[in-house]
């Protein structure tokens, strides 16, 4: 279960980054592709919650 949560979260982060790359390299010039790269940080915080939970904080 934990493995698949990590895997799925990481995958979402990689998808966000690759959509932003598609924009930056001119493949898809639209504003939605351009901004989705900034949603990779959502995957980042979720991965930290899964892999390095803070003591006393929410897992």
């Amino acid at each position, binding site marked *: 279960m934990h493995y698949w949560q990590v895997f799925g979260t990481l995958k979402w982060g990689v998808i966000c980054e690759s959509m932003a790359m598609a924009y930056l390299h001119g493949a898809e010039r639209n504003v939605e592709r351009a901004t989705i790269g900034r949603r990779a*940080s959502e995957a980042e*915080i*979720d991965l*930290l919650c899964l892999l*390095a939970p803070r003591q006393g904080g929410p897992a």
Partner: protein
Amino acid sequence: MQDTPSPDDLLAAVAGYLREQAAPQLQGQTAFHARVAANALDVVRRQLSLAPAAEAAEAERLRALLGAQGSLEELNRLLCQRIASGAMDLQSPGLAPHLWRVTLDKLAVDQPGYDSYRRVRAAEPTRQDKDT
């Protein structure tokens, strides 16, 4: 020195126009993209106001953590190398708190409304920032 309005004021004006005037008159994907565009301007506004202090603090932590000098990008590259080589991991003193701080600072700019971010921030005892 430029006159007013400031970059922040101009960006706020354009974001407001896109969100409140343009988007409601548009349809389908074009309306959606107008709202995405307004959100993108909000990201830029938050980055302009928050990133300078956050990045200065990040560089300072990295210099201490790595015992090295360099630009923020160089220091981050070095950190990646040390993690990839196994020289540093989550047990390394200070690394996990550093990664958490970096990520929370990123979310404060990118997605302050993101559910996980709000939950973590709500549980944080020390910092009382006013971004919501």
